[in-house]
């Protein structure tokens, strides 16, 4: 598969169909965590790592176990178990090998299990890169790159939002708009800005 396909997928997942601002996957953490930059970026990196690894593992399970044995209906169950186990496993490894990093992630690491972006990326891979029950050419690499792009786009959106919200602390926001409503309105403007990327094709 040639480079331009991969670049198209990356640009598409990060900018054109950004997982948060366009597909609405990962909103709960987006609204909840994006108040400050350090936790936002840390969570973004953690999500990118989990999404990429989960994309790999779930692709393998889908292609070599679920499809050949006609078990597509077990997709939801198996995928979420894979993600939950992987997050648990990652938590244990990070706790042992990099305790300082573990402290930075805090409670956000287990929260990644229910992050729509992770599960959404895995499901999207099987919807878009499989046709009539067979993998499309280059499906594995495409899924891996889409998974990575999903996390990267998530991190980008989190980073921008946290920068804005940190500045917002100095603004005089009306009481009923504080915190959540104003964040949504900012997200709406960001989403509008990202709409400008649509139609871009290599």
């Amino acid at each position, binding site marked *: 598969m040639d480079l331009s396909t991969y670049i198209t997928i990356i640009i598409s997942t990060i900018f054109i*169909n950004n997982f948060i601002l366009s597909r609405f996957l990962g909103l709960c953490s987006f609204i909840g965590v994006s108040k400050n930059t350090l936790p936002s970026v840390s969570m973004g990196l953690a999500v990118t790592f989990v999404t990429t690894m989960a994309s790999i593992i779930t692709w393998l399970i889908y292609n070599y176990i679920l499809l050949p044995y006609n078990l597509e*209906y*077990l997709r939801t*169950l198996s995928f979420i*178990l894979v993600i939950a186990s992987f997050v648990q496993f990652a938590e244990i490894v990070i706790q042992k090998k990099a305790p300082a990093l573990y402290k930075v992630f805090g409670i956000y690491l287990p929260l990644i299990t229910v992050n729509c972006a992770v599960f959404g990326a895995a499901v999207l891979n099987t*919807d*878009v890169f499989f*046709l009539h029950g067979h993998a499309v050419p280059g499906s594995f690499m495409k899924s891996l790159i889409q998974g990575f792009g999903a996390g990267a786009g998530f991190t980008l959106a989190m980073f921008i939002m946290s920068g804005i919200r940190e500045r917002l602390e100095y603004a005089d926001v009306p009481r009923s708009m504080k915190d959540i409503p104003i964040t949504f309105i900012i997200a709406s403007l960001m989403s509008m800005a990202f709409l400008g990327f649509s*139609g871009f*094709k290599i």
Partner: protein
Amino acid sequence: MNQMTKFGLMLGIICLAATLVLAFTYEVTRPIIAAALYREEQEALKAIMPEADSFKPGAVGGIEYFEAMNGPALVGYCLKVTGSGYGGYMHIIVGIDTGGVIKGLRILQHMETPGLGSKINEIRLGESEPYFLKQFIGKNARTISVGNGIDAITGATISSKAVTDAINKTVTEFMEKMRQ
């Protein structure tokens, strides 16, 4: 029995129960889902080629098609076309006569953006068929393209091209393979 084994066993039992329940539900719903898909396909075929009274399925070189028959006479073909759109795959059925002229078409499934790309399947008020698809009827499937016989939808160029190019490519391939 130590803690880890107890946890594993608990989780294992629940997973097993879950899998059994799902396998059962799947077996029960499978024929119903297949019937629904079949009904939808038949309905599309009849709407595209109303003059045909039976459809014989066939496949050539990876392209699935139906022979549209009126009694013993061949009226045309209905091809299953798969296009690559903006948001993912789209499944189209296009009906052609033996010369490759489009008699009718229907988009069964697509993943285009709602409000933009999804206009390829949008039916205007007071009409009964999607307005974008109407312009395909009567055109030679092997020569159509956006700008040459087909006008794209404003703001949905990629989706419009996807439909047009997929039909062109598949019909061209089909007619070549049938000639052999």
